[in-house]
């Protein structure tokens, strides 16, 4: 069983080595892991557990190459099943069938992304055997299945999902015969599906007619959009650059997660400090040097692997732990906790009106809800405003990027030493700009992005405080920090509001703190709301 999984793993991930990447820079940046099927239009995706096992980050690519980070909702290792959740609207869900009605020798259709190719493949086959071993029962399918198909759906003739492809069930001999693949009956997914609010189990296998698909080709086409590609970044695959061969030493992760006066920034110790600076200016300088060095080193490492993108417009935020939250702000920023964030790229600047215009002209984005600033030629280099969360996300997807998570945003803004502002702990900068209780810059409103170099973060990201507030990917959860995972948190699985980060030009001093958490309805828009995009490290 294990051998087979390993073989599959090797097929999929053997290109992962740094050397291989350097030799073959044309290799697609993402690591194809498998296929999944949308089981609920709210963004629930069913796949095989082994597809996402050990994943640091899971990305679901829906029809039309829309990429969405996925949260792992539930897994069943015994039956090799996993349920993921993505925040994407307009999804086509697959209908689920009754596995008990599956017949030996019945014809089935499988849909999957073989070898992680972008083209979906639809294959046909028959259920040639039903096998049980221990507690697992599987269908054996003779369709042409390859690595990358794992986790994908097996449909019956009515277009209902009756199984999920697994490779973990091996023939007892341990030999993997050709044309032999296995699917877990969909009935084993029932406990996982129970995690979906209001999931209607009564419709399973009811044979609701699938549109007007008269012929088979029509049916297959109906099934394709319900299948998604799943890419993952493995925990073991890209450790912090410092520990990989080619980098000089293991100094990067250390420097990146070693805040200078450890005792003082410790959550317990920092209480009672009130508004006094947590770290002094000298150590801020030192930390800045360290963060920049870590960033340089990570960049060199990426360059070595041949996967550096658009360094001018995006800043690389190296992998490592940082201190998230603050004790002296609103209760939703408590407790202060350590979070590991994997390396990622973040736009140096907020998305500007002129950039957003290109997306509108491409017919992908819709114009901002209020077009005054958008249509003002003088403000083309100002951040795009009056956009909803969904518009922001659509733009990022169009660019092949995504919205950053809350944790990623805060890491980029404050580095590793738990500082209050991107530039350190000095409130002078803020006080100097305080006019009638609000932070005003040169304009009475937005200003061209990147104008305030003094306010940049040590990683070289601009306007994290000032200009406009930014939509981030996460749902807002008031008490999320109390239950947040310590590794690449993706926010709560559901919510009513989306998080907004970074004080805008109208921010009050409290809101200018990098740990301040704003939020609003995802359909809200306004002159102080903009966004920037992030990108995964391949």
């Amino acid at each position, binding site marked *: 069983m294990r051998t087979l999984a390993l073989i599959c793993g090797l097929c999929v991930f053997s290109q992962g080595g740094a050397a291989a990447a350097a030799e073959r820079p044309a290799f697609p940046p993402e690591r194809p892991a498998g296929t999944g099927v949308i089981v609920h239009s709210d963004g629930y995706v069913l796949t095989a557990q082994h597809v996402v096992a050990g994943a640091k980050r899971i990305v679901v690519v829906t029809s039309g190459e829309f990429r969405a980070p996925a949260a792992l909702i539930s897994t069943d290792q015994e039956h090799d099943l996993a349920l993921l959740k993505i925040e994407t609207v307009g999804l086509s869900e697959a209908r689920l069938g009754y596995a008990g009605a599956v017949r030996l020798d019945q014809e089935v259709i499988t849909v999957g992304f073989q070898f992680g190719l972008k083209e979906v493949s639809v294959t046909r086959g028959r259920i040639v055997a039903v096998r049980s071993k221990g507690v697992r029962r599987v269908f054996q399918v003779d369709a042409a299945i390859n690595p990358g198909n794992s986790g994908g759906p097996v449909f019956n*003739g009515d277009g209902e999902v009756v199984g999920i492809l697994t490779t973990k069930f091996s*023939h007892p001999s341990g030999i993997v015969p050709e044309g032999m693949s296995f699917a877990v009956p969909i009935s084993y997914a029932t406990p996982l599906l129970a995690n979906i609010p209001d999931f209607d189990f009564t419709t399973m296998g009811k044979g609701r007619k699938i549109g007007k698909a008269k012929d088979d080709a029509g049916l297959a086409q109906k099934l394709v*959009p319900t299948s998604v590609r799943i890419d993952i970044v493995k925990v073991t695959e890209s450790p912090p650059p410092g520990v990989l061969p080619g980098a000089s030493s293991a100094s990067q992760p250390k420097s990146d997660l070693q805040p200078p006066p450890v005792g003082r920034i410790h959550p317990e110790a920092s209480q009672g400090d009130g508004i006094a600076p947590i770290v002094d200016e000298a150590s801020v300088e030192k930390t800045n040097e360290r963060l920049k060095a870590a960033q340089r080193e990570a960049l060199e490492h990426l360059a070595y692997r041949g996967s550096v993108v658009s360094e001018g417009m995006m800043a690389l935020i190296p992998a490592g732990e940082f201190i998230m939250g603050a004790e002296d702000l609103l209760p939703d920023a408590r407790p202060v906790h350590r979070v590991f964030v994997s390396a990622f790229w973040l736009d140096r600047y907020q998305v500007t009106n002129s950039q957003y215009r290109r997306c509108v002209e491409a017919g992908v984005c819709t114009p901002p809800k209020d077009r005054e600033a958008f249509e003002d030629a003088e403000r083309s280099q100002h951040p795009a405003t009056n956009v909803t969360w969904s518009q922001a996300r659509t733009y990022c997807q169009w660019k092949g990027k995504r919205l950053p998570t809350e944790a990623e945003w805060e890491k980029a803004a404050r580095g590793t030493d738990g500082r209050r502002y991107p530039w350190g702990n000095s409130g002078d900068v803020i006080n100097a700009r305080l006019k009638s209780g609000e932070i005003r810059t040169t304009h009475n409103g937005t200003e061209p992005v990147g104008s305030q170099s003094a306010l940049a973060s040590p990683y070289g990201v601009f306007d994290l405080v000032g200009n406009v507030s930014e939509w981030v990917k996460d749902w807002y959860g008031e008490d999320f920090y109390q239950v947040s995972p310590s590794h690449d948190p993706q926010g709560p699985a559901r919510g009513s509001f989306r998080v907004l980060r970074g004080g805008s030009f109208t921010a009050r001093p409290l809101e200018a703190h990098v740990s301040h958490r704003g939020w609003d309805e995802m359909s809200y828009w306004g002159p102080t709301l903009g966004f920037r995009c992030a990108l995964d490290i391949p």
Partner: protein
Amino acid sequence: MRLHAVRWVIGLLVSSTFVYAQGTAPQARGARITEKGVALTTIIELETTARLLAILLDSGRSVINENQPIFDDPETADKGFTPNVFEKQLQEVFRSRTGIDLQDLAAARVPMSTIPLLKALVEAGKHVVADAQPEINRKGIEFKGFIPAVFGQRVGRLFTVRTGVRLKQTSLVVRNPANTPDAEERTALEAFADPSYPREKAISEVTKQSNALRLMFPLYTTRQCLNCHGEPKGKLDKTGYPREGLKLGQNAGAISVMIPLPGK
């Protein structure tokens, strides 16, 4: 309200891309899918049947095993091990292993199709015990040779003739060449031999090619087994075969069941 409007617009955008994606998808070929063959529910019933038959046969073997000291008595002629005594003890062992009362199968949670087969197997066992009475009751010698393996083989043969369902005892190391495992049985036996394999969990398969359900149910050694199959390895036991050196509770072969699929 506005939220819904946005959802709708995005949905439209997304779905328009779907159309594009569909256009690039390979065209499916082949005839309209037809429904035939045996449904999974039926297969699961057959699996249950096969597993219960294996446990019942092994329960019979246990009864024979437990009575070996009585059989071995060279003095007494009538051992009193009648088919009815056998049936009583068999019911007891089977109930303790499965919770199923053979006397009240209608109330037990077993598939309807299983009941006649279980009854037929009990009858086959009684038949074999009845036929073995002269052997068991023979005076003057200790070892009569009516051991679990012999019992199992005779019952299996009789049961196959009566029902068409094949029952076979097999092991990686067999004493009786007739019990030599075939390829499928061997792979299952190798899986059972792995100490990490869960106890008493069967391995089964239904393939289109074989058109039958095959199930392998693992067996484990008891103290009685070790009299002949235990240590010291290689030393001849009372039947004249060298001992296998098995340890208590170790996997020692399996019962192989083959049920032809209904229809066809």
